[in-house]
């Protein structure tokens, strides 16, 4: 039996009508915010070598990509991520340009394997930006403020929480315990799931019980300014302390800008520990069951492409974002609902019809030609 032509592959879908419109609107708003902060748009190849993504975003995500062989036998993938391609361009194509480089993009990324049970899509449209060549509080803050402005323009600011962490805190602790890569990944997983009992049990293999349970309390700390005091008492190693200090300085700037209401410190947020090197952040909006965006500092990535320099960036999930906006009939998206003036083609000379149409288009009117009776048109 032949397969129905209506069938589409798992994790793929159409967007039409108001949904397609909401997507275009979110994209336009985000890209105009990026442009407003002087980020230039970049388009990366849709298909690229597997080795690029393996070196870039890392094998966990690269392995989830659709793969096939090129004519010369090298493995190609449909891009699972945009950052890898941007980083390579920065290190090669744009190696001689003045720093910092500021890039923005909107692009689909593809994963053969579903990312999680809740994220069923295998094509996800990412809106993102990268700031390459600076490792400073100014750079960290610039990208955070850009993210915030996008949500402000989408009128989602009051439902927004951006959580902040510095992954160097956990890396410093793992170093101090001399964890091998496997144990470090295990610790990351436990911290990420926030189970104090599991973390304590795991750390007791390496450190006295009091230290283990103190650390377990540390990763459950989330909140605002009040997080720093207890954290500074628990942490002893210099690498982690420096990272905590940097986070606190950033926090104080956010506070001075009167933006503390939108941000939270969350010392347990440690996804993708091997990729990120400093500040990390995750964006949650009321009404969405999963994060709508995430980002952070990835100072080690460009060295993989032969030019060691710092970078920071974030991505937003356009699909989840426009789903949310459509579901709550957001004003920003609604405002763009269009109306058309119908021009009848019934019993009319087509020359006259199109003269009218062109005249109206010239003055910017939206028109819709009624073709129901087109067969009766003269000529």
């Amino acid at each position: 039996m032949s397969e129905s032509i209506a069938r589409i592959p798992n994790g793929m879908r159409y967007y039409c009508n108001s949904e397609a419109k909401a997507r275009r609107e979110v994209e336009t708003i985000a890209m105009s915010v990026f442009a407003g902060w002087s980020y230039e748009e970049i388009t990366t190849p849709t298909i690229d070598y597997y080795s690029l993504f393996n070196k870039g975003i890392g094998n966990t995500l690269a392995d989830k990509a659709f793969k096939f062989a090129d004519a010369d036998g090298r493995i190609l993938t449909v891009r699972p991520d945009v950052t890898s391609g941007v980083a390579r361009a920065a290190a090669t194509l744009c190696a001689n340009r003045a720093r910092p480089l500021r890039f923005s993009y909107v692009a689909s990324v593809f994963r053969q394997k579903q990312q999680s049970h809740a994220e069923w899509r295998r094509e996800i449209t990412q809106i993102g930006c990268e700031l390459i060549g600076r490792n400073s509080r100014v750079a960290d803050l610039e990208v955070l403020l850009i993210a915030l402005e996008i949500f402000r323009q989408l009128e989602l600011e009051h439902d927004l929480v951006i959580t902040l962490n510095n992954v160097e805190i956990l890396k410093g602790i793992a170093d101090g315990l001399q964890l091998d890569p496997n144990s470090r990944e295990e610790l990351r997983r436990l911290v990420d799931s926030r189970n104090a009992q599991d973390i304590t049990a795991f750390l007791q293999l390496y450190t006295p019980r009091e230290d283990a349970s103190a650390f377990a309390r540390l990763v459950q700390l989330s909140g605002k300014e009040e997080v720093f005091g207890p954290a500074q008492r628990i942490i002893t190693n210099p690498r982690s302390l420096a990272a905590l200090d940097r986070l606190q300085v950033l926090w104080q700037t956010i506070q001075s800008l009167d933006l503390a209401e939108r941000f939270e410190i969350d010392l347990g947020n440690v996804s993708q520990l091997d990729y990120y090197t400093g500040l990390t952040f995750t964006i949650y909006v009321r009404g969405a069951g999963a994060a709508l965006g995430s980002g952070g500092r990835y100072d080690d990535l460009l060295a993989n492409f032969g030019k060691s320099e710092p970078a920071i960036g974030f991505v937003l999930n356009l699909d989840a974002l426009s789903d949310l906006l459509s579901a709550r009939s957001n004003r920003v998206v609604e405002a763009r609902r269009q109306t058309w003036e119908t021009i009848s083609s019934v019993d009319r000379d087509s020359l006259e019809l199109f003269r009218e149409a062109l005249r109206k288009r010239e003055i910017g009117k939206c028109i819709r030609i009624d073709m129901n009776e087109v067969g009766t048109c003269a000529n």
Partner: protein
Amino acid sequence: MRELIIAIAKGRLQAEALELLSRAGICANGDSRESRRLAIRDESGQYKLLFVKPNDVPVYVEHGIADCGIVGRDVLLEFEPDVLQPLTLNIGRCQIIVAAPEAATPSASGMLTIATKHSHIAAKHFRSRGQPVEIIELSGSVELAPGLGLSDCIVDLVQTGTTLRDNGLKIVEVITDSMGRLIVNRASYQLKATSIATLIAALRQATDWGGAT
């Protein structure tokens, strides 16, 4: 405070979970407890409780339909959902074990056939040590399989071990312990931070470890 929706695994864990919740001050009133409704409000109106199949608890929580869930660790190991697990609850204590017939002799080929409801846990356990296995997924009465020749052994949950003994099986290996856990949706953990922190503190207080942790 925002209303929290808690998904609770029906069956084995349900009575203990409700008892724990009521010790934490979250009481379903008598009427609704006896009714067969699958969604009820607690007396304070701050919590809504959903009763769903154990395997569905992480599904509701991962999608953010429920903010939190109470479910056995066995379910979390089997499905590896992307949720937070801030608290282990001293309820529904059991073990995930490998059991084989009393008189079993290791097969010469080294290949093992395993009947189980927990195919992911079983596969992961044996593959991590390079043991080739064939997993036969069943949905119940797993203890029958070795006796009837369907499999060499089983991977299953046990509380007392009575069913195993009655079917001529013995525990060969304990894979891990399992207990009830509180799980939380990642977005809810941030967006309803105060309510969730209150719930975690109340449940931690109400969890009776009998002196041991």
